[in-house]
């Protein structure tokens, strides 16, 4: 199944789109006029990804459906959404520096998201009004169906957030396999155990939970990755966690989290702290490098780290 991501005008990438990871991830020409697409082909559970894209500053925002990610912004949504808070200070002209994300020569100084871009849940929907000094009201921000999207507001601490959520968390996180036995013995008095093995061990994959945050949602969740064997399963779980309340108002199907047809992008933070799209790499490789997950609004997908072939780099 080929799922086309990103730019919708189907310009062939000119790269190897279906191969097993062959082809350069970045057009070597470094031309600023290339537009290319991202494709994810799924064959036998093996996800390959070739991604290269860049846009020029000359392109009109509206015509451009920039999608570095799994999301496909609908025309206006993608264009409008590009004016994220990163742009506020520069006005219209400033966005060019964020648009040219993936030229070859930019590669060294690429817009790798800062390490905590995925871990920090700083506000993403509030236009940066610090230069204008206006008060930000709830109406200024793009809000999800049920109200404000301000991070950390209202200031209700973890313990007092919607008790019913505890049930929803349960369904996703109680599928773990029983924990490792080899280091467990009562009353052992040897030195400090290395818990990192137990918790992050790849060969002893037991309970491997990562945090999931969704933009606009105050409450983060945890999901057990080892309880899932594929991206589809993961998307299903996340859909239940975050979107089940909206199923009557939004047509957010689980698969759309992955194929980019929803307004949300599923991203993750890897070991290096980079923000990556979910679905690029084989599932196993994903498991070994994922640190946490984040469901981003489509408009923020331009903050993602550049993508390059796994073979050229140790992930």
């Amino acid at each position: 199944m080929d799922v086309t991501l990103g730019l919708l005008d189907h310009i062939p990438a000119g790269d190897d789109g279906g191969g097993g990871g062959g082809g350069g991830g970045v057009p070597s020409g470094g031309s600023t006029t290339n537009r290319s697409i991202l494709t994810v082909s799924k064959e036998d559970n093996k996800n390959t990804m070739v991604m290269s894209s860049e846009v020029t500053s000359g392109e009109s925002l509206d015509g451009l459906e920039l999608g570095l990610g799994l999301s496909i912004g609908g025309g206006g949504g993608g264009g409008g959404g590009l004016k994220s808070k990163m742009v506020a200070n520069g006005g219209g002209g400033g966005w060019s520096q964020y648009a040219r994300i993936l030229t070859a020569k930019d590669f060294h100084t690429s817009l790798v998201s800062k390490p905590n871009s995925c871990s920090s849940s700083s506000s993403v929907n509030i236009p940066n009004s610090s230069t204008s000094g206006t008060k930000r009201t709830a109406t200024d921000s793009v809000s999800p169906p049920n109200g404000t999207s301000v991070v950390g507001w209202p200031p209700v601490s973890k313990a007092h957030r919607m008790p019913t959520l505890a049930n929803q968390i349960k369904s996703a996180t109680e599928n773990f396999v029983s924990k490792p036995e080899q280091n467990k013995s009562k009353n052992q008095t040897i030195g400090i155990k290395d818990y990192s093995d137990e918790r992050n061990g790849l060969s002893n994959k037991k309970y491997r939970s990562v945090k999931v945050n969704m933009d606009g949602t105050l409450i983060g969740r945890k999901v057990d990755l080892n309880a899932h064997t594929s991206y589809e399963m993961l998307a299903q779980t996340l859909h239940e966690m975050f979107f089940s309340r909206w199923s009557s108002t939004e047509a957010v199907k689980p698969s759309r989290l992955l194929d980019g047809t929803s307004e949300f992008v599923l991203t993750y933070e890897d070991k290096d702290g980079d923000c990556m799209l979910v679905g690029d790499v084989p599932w196993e490789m994903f498991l070994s490098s994922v640190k946490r997950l984040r469901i981003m609004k489509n408009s923020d997908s331009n903050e993602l780290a550049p993508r390059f072939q796994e073979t050229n780099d140790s992930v």
Partner: protein
Amino acid sequence: MDPAATGVTVAGTGADPAKTTMFPEEFLKRTFSLINSDKDRNSVSLVCKDWYNVERMSRRHVSIRNCYSVSPEIVTARFPAIRSVTLKGKPRFSDFNLVPDDWGADVQPWLNVFATAYPFLEELRLKRMAVSDESLEFLALNFDDFKALSMLSCEGFSTLGLEAIATHCKNLTELDIQENGIDDLGGDWLSYFPENLTSLEVLNFSTLTSEVSFDALESLVSRCKSLRVLKVNRKINLEQLGKLLVLAPQLIELGTGTFLEELVSGSVNGLENAFSKCGNLVTLSSFWDATLLHLPVVYPVCGNLTFLNLSYANIGPDELEQILGRSKRLVRLWVVDTVGDKGLEAVGSHCPLLEELRVFPVDPFDQQLGVTDSGLVAVSKGCPKLHYILYFCQRMTNAAVITVAQNCPNFTHFRLCIMNPSEPDYLTNEPMDEAFGAIVKTCTKLERLSVSGLLTDLAFEYIGKYAKNLETLSVAFAGDSDLGMEYVMRGCPKLKRVEIRDCPFGDSALLSGLTQYESMRSLWMSDCNVTMDGCKKLAEEMSRLNVEVIKDEGGDDRLANKVYVYRTVAGPRKDAPPFVVTL
């Protein structure tokens, strides 16, 4: 302490200063050992060098309210005989996801130093610290006398760490785990308590989500005859709770499990009976899934309750009235806004002794009307002793708050959260300035204030002018200009902690507090108008402050989006992650 007895000369009496050193150290030691308050001890240590030395040698408990304000080496060098440590780490706004993960506040560096300096450490109370399983095991293995562990809002550990504590702490009296970001890996941590451990007095695992072995729990409760605080988690049902109560009628504080299952009528009686035998119970909490079906089982103990925490129970006004009607001695009450204004009227009618009320929103994002201004007024009318309020609501009026201030002039903690940012008075459409003005004018003992709603600089002018005892201030989405913050920083001499988010306060406001910051614990400003230049200037002027900027992804490099300023004798952080820049 009687000054005459200790030979302290009051300044100006002309007595011979040499007399103060004539008292044997032993005398001072014994006297000081009776002083437990940190504040008093701090005062004592300032009198003279001898007193400083005797005090520091005899201090048993130290509270470090900002783990970066001092280093473990400095603490252990000054106080060699500490048995109990309280350690607080991250800024409070980390509770609301405003501080990135991996920011710091790791407890391990402290444990490393304590292992050699305080091998007899008995108690460790942590708040907003990063705690790993390795640290918990280190704690369990290196401190033979360790007795009490309390962790509130800590993160980074799992039930594996709890296993280590249970296994190795032979003298454990307290294990109190609250509101933490725990990796609940399930498993059997409770079963790791050895059979011969009978010393437990406090056990609170209410925030763990997975099942514990009930047999192990039953056995533990049964053999720990001194158990006075037991708070179980949601996996424990009513029937099991009943069994535990029968084994521990001496309990003073109880956190229930779930009320979900339907009990056979025989069991209900048994449970009521079990509760009725708990004559010492004064605190009840949890109440997950409670409904009028089984709520009555607690009625036998309601008459003795002083603290009722219903903040996990989405009950309505009728259920609340049933309980409150039987709980005339309540001093502290925590509820969810599902009780509505009607429920709060019941509070006003039935709880004349109430001193503290907290009303939490059931769904922070739901625009449904939970509680409003009329509920707050109703409580203030019926509870004149009220001095602590935390109130989440959708809307409020100036008139209501003014009335509340008149009814309850003794507020020490007034935390009002109107959940829509910058929401005006819903009747007059005016800012909420007068509301908070009334509070600060009338409540002269006010120590803690959280403001919300639409506020202009006038509100802050009031605060600066009247809130002379204010120690903690939380501000969000408020103010017009730098003046707002300047009023406060210049007007409130006792400020200890100020946290501001999303306000139009810039460098001038930041610098207006120059003279204050060294006597404050910390200042937090996020999403305001502060620039890097402003922060640099502050850092240059005040060398004993750490001025830290947390860099966000993207954004203008000239802006300082998140600023954390605090006094320290330990210099800049050595463990700062790359996104924390100390200027």
